[in-house]
């Protein structure tokens, strides 16, 4: 059994106790995206301002949930602030890759049954604090907690891509 220290790294607990960019932004100019994990009730709200150059000029996080979902949201907010949308997308891909590196399980030959291809992490992308969430993959039930914020952000960005 993997140890708790793999999951609750100090940096994660720090983001949980002292969440960064917590709050709301006026919409417009901000866009608001809401994410919900109906299985555990975790909730994330992302407020996002993208400037004329396609750069995330401001971001705020609302919602409530477990330490993993909340710290992941906090880290994400810090990581995307000031980045271009392309950079944000690359970060998102890198993070998803981090979350899908499965170890061989009890019966490794049979995989996890999801049948989806495992994304390959891009070594060029520096995840910063987010890398601390790596331990989550050893606790499969918690992966959805860690990815909730990113899925919410992605939905927000897709909406942004559509005519308002």
């Amino acid at each position: 059994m993997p140890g708790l220290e793999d999951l609750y790294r100090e940096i994660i607990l720090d983001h949980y106790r002292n969440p960064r960019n917590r709050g709301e932004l006026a919409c417009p100019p901000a866009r608001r995206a809401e994410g919900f994990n109906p299985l555990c009730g975790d909730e994330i709200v992302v407020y996002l301002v993208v400037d004329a150059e396609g750069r995330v000029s401001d971001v705020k996080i609302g919602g409530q949930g477990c330490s993993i979902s909340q710290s992941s949201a906090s880290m994400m907010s810090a990581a995307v602030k000031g980045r271009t949308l392309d950079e944000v997308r690359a970060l998102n891909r890198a993070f998803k890759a981090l979350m899908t590196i499965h170890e061989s399980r009890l019966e490794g030959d049979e995989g996890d049954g999801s049948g989806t291809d495992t994304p390959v992490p891009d070594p060029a992308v520096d995840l910063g604090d987010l890398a601390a969430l790596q331990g989550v993959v050893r606790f499969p039930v918690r992966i959805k907690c860690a990815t909730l914020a990113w899925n919410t952000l992605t939905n927000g960005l897709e909406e942004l891509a559509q005519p308002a």
Partner: protein
Amino acid sequence: MATLSPAPHLAPRLDVLDARRVRAEFPIFERCRHLPLIYLDSAASSQKPRAVIEAMAGYYETCHANVHRGVYGLAEEATGRYEQARAAVARFIGAPSAREVVFTKNATEALNLVAFSWGRANLRPGDVVVLTEMEHHANLVPWLMLAEQVGVELRYLGITDDGHLDLSGLDAALDGAKVVALTAMSNVLGTLNPVRRVADAAHVAGAVVVVDASQYVPHLPTDVSALGADFLAFTGHKMLGPTGIGVLWGREAVLESTPPFLGGGEMIRDVRLDGFTPNELPWKFEAGTPPIAEAVGLAAAVRVLEGIGMEMVRAHEIALTSYALRTLDARFGADLVVHGPRASAERGGVLSFSFKDLHPHDIAQVLDQSGICVRAGHHCAKPLLRRLGVSATSRASWYVYNDESDIDALAQGLVACSELFCL
């Protein structure tokens, strides 16, 4: 071969249940990972005693064949074992006849059978179905589907702030009601509902009473007639039995007026290219090859529970619940909020709680590190959790193999949670 008679050492005829002795009969507690297993999730599923595991293995090793209609001795033996299991279950719940006991795949199928087969045949658009706000999804979703398909009206009995069923609206709710479907014990709050009282009122109003006894039959002496139920559903895996089997009991007259549910072998008397004639009770509701080994396992579980004595099981759980309430209160005071009734005589051994601002997922994760298994989430009762104003709770639940030391470990584990998150 399987041990088929009630294990005598499980029936020490003491005044109190010796949980250590009982636990020794459950192989999983010997599982030697780095920590002893402190299993506090029996409301989700119980562990299995050796007698049950061996009864099933023994069945496969010595007498498996498909049941019914086989002329040869092996098939007759298998059929005998299967039907004896039905008789054992009937006796365990005080059913007047084994004809009233239908084996399903789980409690959920049993409740779907009632909603769809009895419901579609007997309910018309606008007919009222009364439910409660504390139902498990298994006793909600089938009725929601029926509301959509048939147009019945659903009404809900609310709950009081201390987690009891609110009966103030009962008479109004029953006006025009054709069905009252309620849980005998909440799997979240632990509340034991006044089933008899509701059933009597429902019968006066002309409604049929469906009882979800999934959390009741495993933990309290059950007598279907005393409860006043017309239908009663429960599930094998929560009562020391295997997965893959559930039970629907129904009063003979009501079952007779219920059309078949699934169609196939076993449930028919005759089949032509243009129609079929259903079989008699209870086989009319058992389409296809039934859960044979599972029935044998469930019968073994019933014998183990009878060996201990259901009065004893209940007394043990009251004692543990009192101890848990006292212990958690003393240690954590207002930091730990228990959802549901405070008096242990009014509740079963299921304790849902909120602890400081800690998220139940984090609590369950940290407790797991000490080998403690508790459930975190909505416990398949989302409407109830909305009513409680929480999105998830932590839930600890106990059974015959638990004792005070497990509660102590839980309390100790909660201290560790609190320290880790510094809240």
